[in-house]
């Protein structure tokens, strides 16, 4: 009898405990307080968030009923992508706006996470932007992203060394190799050419440019034709291998990202560097400041090469309760004035064409007109929803080829076959 009683008491206690835990669980997560004040949330990497803050304050002064909450995220762009992805997968994303890289657009749009912005902009509005960055924001003929920053890559070269040895900046892949060998042999510099050969997204972006330089293509997004096993693509891989085999690229280039290759250039150890425009201002303040110039990437024919487009933009989450307010913010951030001020402050690459030639901007960054010419000759990475898989396939086989573990033909044939299988599914 007594044992029964204590058992009941214990049972009661346990039930109460569970109930209490559950109640506690559900009451502490209260829904946000409703008010006439509109709250917009956007996740931006921490440094970018700090740089945006002054313009957000200007925006809030113009629209007193809108408060913008910038959540600071990690620096790596794939970490930001993960955070956005996780928030979308889990259902109600807290974010109204998405600070979005060009390669995520197709996936996010295909998953139904982004709001179609096509009706909110006229084509004349879009003409203000670097054309390729507008293209990067489209999926299935609809616009999902407005460009905020454009991103271009180019060939950095050491002007002083070229002049000392009596050479011109290279125009073709052949030029690049022979010039580098000659200047290395004169003992003017340790290495000829630094690029990004690590197995990661940056390698895919770098390869797109070499591929285009040889007249090849990766995946045609319209027809879904895969061009990786064509002779042009194999020639592109062979160029990269030759750069290592001929001794102009350090063997470790197969492990380099943007940063390692940039440091090599800034330390004055390399003649040519393929990298993004952000390197310009950094290198200008390094030991090679004032000693280098930029050119578009080289090609096989000698005409100007192309850059891989790598800009950032703004999109609106489909689940946002305040799409109109979010749109106001996008319009504000991509207005002429905001862009000019923001670029003057940060030295980033604008998405508005007019800002590249804005007198104040040119006075501060004299290479911007040249940068626009490079940005105007850009190609996109394939705008397909399975882009990350396609990129991983390319990276693995390209990495195998440049690490001499597979011949270029076999590597590219395998990559092409796997990519075709991916696109069929």
């Amino acid at each position: 009898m007594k044992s029964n009683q204590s058992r009941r008491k214990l049972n009661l206690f346990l039930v109460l405990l569970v109930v209490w835990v559950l109640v506690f669980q559900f009451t502490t997560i209260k829904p946000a307080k409703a008010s006439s004040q509109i709250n917009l949330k956007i996740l931006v990497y921490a440094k970018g968030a700090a740089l945006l803050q002054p313009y957000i304050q200007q925006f809030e002064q113009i629209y007193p009923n809108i408060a913008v909450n910038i959540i600071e995220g990690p620096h790596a762009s794939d970490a930001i992508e993960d955070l956005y992805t996780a928030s979308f997968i889990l259902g109600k994303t807290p974010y109204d706006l998405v600070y979005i890289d060009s390669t995520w657009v197709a996936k996010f749009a295909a998953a139904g996470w982004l709001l179609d912005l096509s009706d909110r902009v006229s084509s004349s509005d879009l003409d203000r932007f670097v054309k390729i960055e507008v293209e990067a924001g489209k999926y299935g003929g609809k616009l999902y992203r407005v460009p905020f920053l454009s991103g271009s890559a180019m060939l950095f070269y050491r002007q002083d060394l070229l002049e000392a040895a009596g050479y011109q900046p290279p125009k073709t892949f052949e030029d690049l190799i022979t010039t580098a060998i000659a200047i290395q042999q004169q003992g003017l510099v340790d290495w000829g050419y630094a690029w990004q050969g690590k197995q990661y997204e940056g390698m895919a972006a770098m390869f797109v440019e070499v591929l285009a330089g040889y007249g090849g293509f990766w995946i045609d997004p319209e027809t879904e034709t895969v061009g990786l096993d064509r002779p042009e693509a194999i020639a592109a891989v062979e160029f990269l291998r030759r750069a290592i085999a001929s001794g102009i690229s350090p063997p470790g280039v197969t492990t380099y990202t943007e940063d390692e290759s940039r440091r090599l250039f800034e330390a004055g150890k390399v003649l040519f560097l393929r990298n993004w425009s952000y390197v310009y201002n950094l290198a200008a303040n390094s030991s090679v400041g004032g000693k280098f110039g930029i050119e578009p990437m080289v090609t096989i024919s000698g005409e100007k090469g192309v850059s891989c487009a790598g800009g950032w933009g703004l999109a609106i989450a489909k689940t946002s309760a305040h799409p109109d307010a979010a749109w106001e913010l996008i319009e504000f951030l991509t207005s002429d004035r905001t862009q000019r001020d923001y670029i003057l402050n940060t030295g980033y690459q604008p998405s508005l064409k007019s800002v590249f030639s804005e007198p104040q901007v040119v006075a501060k960054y004299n290479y911007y007109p040249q940068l626009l010419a490079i940005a105007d000759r850009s190609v996109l990475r394939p705008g397909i929803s399975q882009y990350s898989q396609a990129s991983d396939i390319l990276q693995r086989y390209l990495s195998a080829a440049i690490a001499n573990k597979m011949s270029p033909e076999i590597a590219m044939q395998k990559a092409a076959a796997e990519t075709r299988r991916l696109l069929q599914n």
Partner: protein
Amino acid sequence: MTTNRQQTIGWLLIIPAMLVLGLVFIYPIARAFWLSLFTENLGTNLEPVFSGFANYTRMLGDGRFWQTLKNTSVFTVASVSIELVLGMAIALVLNQSFRGRGIVRTIAIIPWALPTAVMGLAWAWIFNDQYGVVNDILERLGLIDTGINWLGDPTLAMVALVIADVWKTTPFISIILLAGLQSIPEDIYEAHSIDGANAWQSFYQITLPLLMPQILIALLFRFAQSFGIFDLVQVMTGGGPAGATETVSIYIYSTVMRYLDFGYGAALVVVTFLLLISFVGITSFIFSKAK
């Protein structure tokens, strides 16, 4: 009556623990298994479509899965066995009494206390071909003429990862073993040496057998951790070169987070889980038999 009642109370007391275990352990795995029977990716507009064991048959023909499984196994076996030997040696040293032992013990555990991602970045620079400390030392010793491209070669990249992991987690093993060593009474050794045993004999006949439970715990912990290694690899090599260091965890992460292929990702999780559980089961069984 009393034993009966005690038993009931005993059971009642562990119910909360069982509930927690069920929620955090059994439910996710059951759910992963359920999800693995569906195709849910961008092709199906992220809607689950029942597809039976299609994800598992797909896995059979997925070369990348098998490669990551091989990479993970090589990494796990190499790092755990080296760590066990080194950890044992360090534990034996730290168990001796000498001046400043407290400080040395604290210092010895530092690598384990540092965040892996940060140390992964540091190790990537240590193995850098141009600026790396490893190449610099080897060059100064006259062992090599030009820098070795550590992270650019599939085999060497794996070696570099194992070295970094050994550095990082050996302290963990030595701390567990040290705790075990301290529970062995000193008199047993004395009696043994009076019987005429030398140091090696007492190590094999006393230390090792009495330390078996701790060795087993250390082994299982490290095995499970190492089989799921993600951060170190992600930071140091990103799975490259040529996918030679990609581990199962990285592949699962890509499949779920980047490819949004949830059904297949779940199938990968289930298979990895079963492999891990069966290894743990077999190891525990062997150890219990050995006793």
